[in-house]
């Protein structure tokens, strides 16, 4: 990696970090910014550049042809994670510009002779004081170098109140193939679900029902404590992860032998583990899409329901979006039991239920859609919601112990379960 550039959406350079001879900003703008994000662009026979898009910002990293592209991508990811942790929020053009000199120093610590060096947010926080601290008139105190024994945790961390918060956050990826009514009666023209319905096997079991989970912690503990987490299922068969990845602080031999996630955590918020597993049904919210219904078989119906659950008070921000083909001109509402329907664009019908939806509830939307000359059927519908209180995999933190504790009192421990659904589609 020869240098790191950050651009705003107009192609104006916000940050230019280079210690080695690097291509000029103009060259980068003209060659790289036209390419799609996440791509590797060949600048010259011996020089490449990687482009990563973040909101309206563009991160461009010119590098030699000998580089490992995956490492560059992973580094840019980590750089963004570090900056977000350092500035405690999303990055914007203004933030980059007004903190440019601080970011230059962070980059000095993160890159040495073109190779990644220190990329742990906590260590970086200790190494580079924030701009406001340095600028403040009253700060005449000399900055001294921090120290660390573990490469992700500063030495001598103290907290007046010792506490640890654990967040189990799961996002659901579901694909349900919907039931098809009246298989035998096919419209002559190829409309709606005709392609699909001719061969679709009728089944309500999801084609894909996959959980991606994250174990996040916010650790505010004095000294270098050893935390051990146990991940168990509240009920049902034992969880079987397709794959699980750990923060570098986690001792993976403990995981292999005892199923414990054992680690000396980084200070502050961090992600300790990330996993993926398949489950049998989406749980809390279910939805179906019926096509070719009604007397003339030119209507469709969407049904959504929430199941009873004692651990969840309500579903948050439930929304169903029904997507139609490009040629659709008109979407008509025939029956709507509850919720608000917005059909501002002819391709989409957004059916939303406000901030809170109770459990053990259902709703139906019957409608009709057409293109210029004929009725059309929806392509697919997506469901999104949030829920606090449980996770779809039914995993739970079944044990939490802290060893090597330098403080007397029993630290406060908080556990929260959260479900985020934004990739739930019904065909």
């Amino acid at each position, binding site marked *: 990696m020869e240098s790191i550039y950050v651009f705003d959406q107009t192609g104006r350079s916000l*940050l230019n970090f280079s210690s080695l001879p690097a291509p000029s900003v103009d060259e980068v703008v003209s060659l790289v910014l036209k390419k799609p994000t996440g791509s590797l662009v060949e600048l010259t026979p011996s020089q490449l550049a990687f482009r990563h898009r973040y909101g309206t910002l563009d991160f461009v990293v010119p590098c030699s042809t000998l580089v490992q592209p995956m490492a560059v991508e992973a580094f840019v990811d980590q750089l963004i994670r570090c900056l977000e942790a350092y500035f405690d929020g999303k990055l914007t053009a203004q933030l980059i510009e007004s903190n440019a000199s601080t970011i230059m*120093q962070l980059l000095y610590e993160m890159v040495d*002779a073109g190779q990644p060096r220190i990329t742990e947010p906590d260590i970086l926080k200790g190494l580079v004081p924030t701009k406001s601290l340095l600028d403040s008139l009253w700060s005449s105190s000399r900055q001294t*170098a921090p120290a660390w024994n573990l*490469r992700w945790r500063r030495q001598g961390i103290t907290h007046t109140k010792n506490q640890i918060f654990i967040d189990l956050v799961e996002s659901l990826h579901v694909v349900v193939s919907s039931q098809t009514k009246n298989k035998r009666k096919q419209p002559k023209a190829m409309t709606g679900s005709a392609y699909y319905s001719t061969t679709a096997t009728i089944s309500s079991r999801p084609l894909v029902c996959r959980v991606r989970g994250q174990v996040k912690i916010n650790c505010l503990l004095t000294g270098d404590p050893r935390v051990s987490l146990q991940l168990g299922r509240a009920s049902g068969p034992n969880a079987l992860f397709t794959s699980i990845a*750990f923060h570098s602080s986690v001792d993976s031999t403990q995981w292999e032998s005892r199923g414990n996630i054992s680690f000396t955590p980084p200070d502050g918020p961090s992600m300790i583990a990330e996993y993926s597993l398949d489950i049998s049904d989406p749980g809390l919210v279910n939805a179906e899409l019926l096509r070719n219904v009604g007397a003339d078989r030119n209507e469709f119906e969407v049904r959504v329901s929430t199941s009873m659950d004692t651990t969840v008070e309500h579903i948050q921000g439930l929304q169903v979006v029904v997507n139609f083909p490009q040629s659709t001109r008109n979407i008509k509402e025939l029956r709507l039991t509850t919720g608000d329907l917005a059909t501002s664009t002819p391709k989409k019908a957004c059916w939303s239920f406000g901030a809170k939806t109770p459990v053990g509830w259902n709703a139906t939307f019957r409608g009709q859609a057409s293109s210029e000359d004929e009725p059309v059927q929806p392509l697919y519908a997506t469901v999104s919601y949030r829920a606090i209180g449980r996770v779809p995999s039914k995993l739970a933190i079944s044990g939490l112990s802290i060893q090597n504790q330098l403080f007397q009192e029993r630290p406060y421990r908080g556990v929260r379960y959260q479900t985020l659904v934004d990739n739930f589609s019904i065909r």
Partner: protein
Amino acid sequence: MSMAAMFDTAREFTLSAADSASRLVDMRPLQISEIRAMLNSGTEREVRVGLQSLFSLIANGTDTRELFAEVVKNVTSSDFTVRRMVYAYLEKYSDYEPELALMTINGIQKTLASNQSPVARAMALRAIASIKVISISSIVGMAISEAANDLSPIVRIACCQAIARCYSLDSSMGPELLGVLEGLLNDSNDPAVSGWALAVLATSFPNRLDYLHKPWRRLCSSLVSFDEWCQTVSLPFMVKYARHFMSEQDPDVKRLLEGAKPLLHSMNSAVVVETAAVYFYLASTEDFDQYNVAPALVCLKQTELTLQNLEVLVTARPHSFERYLSYFYLSPLDNSDTRVLKLRMISNITNSSNFSAIFQELQYYSHLLEDGRSLTAVMQCLASCATKTPAKVSSVIKWLLTAIASDKRPVLVSQALMALRFVLQQESQDQETRHRASALHQLGKALDNSDLPPDALATTLWLVGEYCREQPALATEVLRKQLKQLAQQPAEVRLQIIQLGAKLYSQYLSEPSRFDARVPKFFEHAIYLGRYDSNYDIKDKVRMFQVLLNDNEHELATLMIQARKPPPMFVRPEEEFKFTLDSGSLSVGHNLTGYMSLEPWGNNGDPADREDDVVVEPTAQTTSISKNTVHREVPMSKLKEKVKAVSLAEFLESSSAEESDDEESSEADDSSDAADDDFDEDSDV
């Protein structure tokens, strides 16, 4: 909008207003002259703020070289942050002002020798190694060999990185630096240090595989304690070592497979892909499955680069990925590059047991997707899946024909026809041609009544012509009908009609009895029309057919016209694909400068060279280092002599006087060290 949300918005508004207000006051970029005054002011705070503003200027690309003297005089500041900014400035500009840069060495050395904080010492070492003035390389070498004995691993890690910098500045330092690096590689106190040493060996001395003999077993078992960035660089180097010195059955290969296992749980996707490469290049398919490589890969975030690497693995080991087929299903959110990559993966994984599920998916995609590129890929994928499962070909053909006859999207119709062509061509001559016969007849019917898009029409005519020997009556009938409307067709269709005539006629010349007697007449008519065509390509073709297809000698024509055309391919061509995993060449699809292909299995090593991985009780740092570097004593002592001969004070005093000498010696260095890695250990420097 809820109350809370309103408050949030209001708060954001206030904050951003406050921020822009403060921008007006504070953020006016200082001019160089103002910064100069601050740097000269002598008060610590002023200097710090001045340097901060200086770095804001550097960040937006301003050249600030003129402040060199003012900046570097703060090199001994007692403020850590100030020193870092000075070092960073020095790193950027040292080669523009070599003499002034040399003035800072004394100050940096003082920090290096006496600062209590290992982080401060590590930073000073980096600073001294980053001064790009070749005449000081021996001073840097001295600092490096001292830092290698530092008690703090933070400094020893910085020492590894300084070795890389020093070597790139002056490659004649190679033997000395390798001696120090070997000590660090065998650092038994902290595996993180040997990780960095290994990473530097891999990047700066990629040919010195021999340095891995001794520590191999220990490195394998301590891989998990390496920094993630050392892991990404070291793994391919270790694969290279293993393939060069070992055989697949070597138990030391197994050690690497075992040692790399926890790395499959890394959150760094580059580490996971490089670990997968270890099992891909060193282990059998059974081991690849045993170590659960495939699930770790499919769960990675599916970026374009990840999918490109996955494609290599899925193509080579489709069975290992069969269980994870649904990870490659398309999502409405994918972009078209991702879709194409995933569809290639799906076509690789297809077999007779999962075909039905895949067929169903592809049908849905053909319906859902609207952009041409994705639809093309879906149809190509379908065709390639169908040819892998001969038992299901008929249902695919049936579905394709329905789509061709009734779909309203021109792209889909054309692509369905291309897919049909692919499927039909895959059926070999001796296999039963029943599918083809009925398909061709249906296509013939489709030609009659529909308004096929031109490229679909051209493909259909091509197909009818290609199989006119099997279906002479159909072909003749199609030709007769098409000739009537030839004038109204676009050029590509006109060309195909004339070619159909030529194909039929050439078959007729071989076996007149099997064909309609009107064929010569139709051909003559086609030639007649073509001769007056406005399109030059068509005129040329017609002239060629006229010459080739005369009654006397038509063997050449038969060869040319009746030759079987290769079916269009969906899989990626092999030349884009032969590159090693996670190489730039694999991503861009062709050979890049410096690409290194996979090391062939060599079995050139002797297991006796590799030391056992004994758990050594942490000993005092100095002893372990000196023990390991005993046989490097000659270059080490030489280095010390050299440095002693020119003490630093003398050096700085006489640096201007010695300038001409330095130039000479650096030239000599360059010439004596043309072969950078294969130098002789004992050569005089």
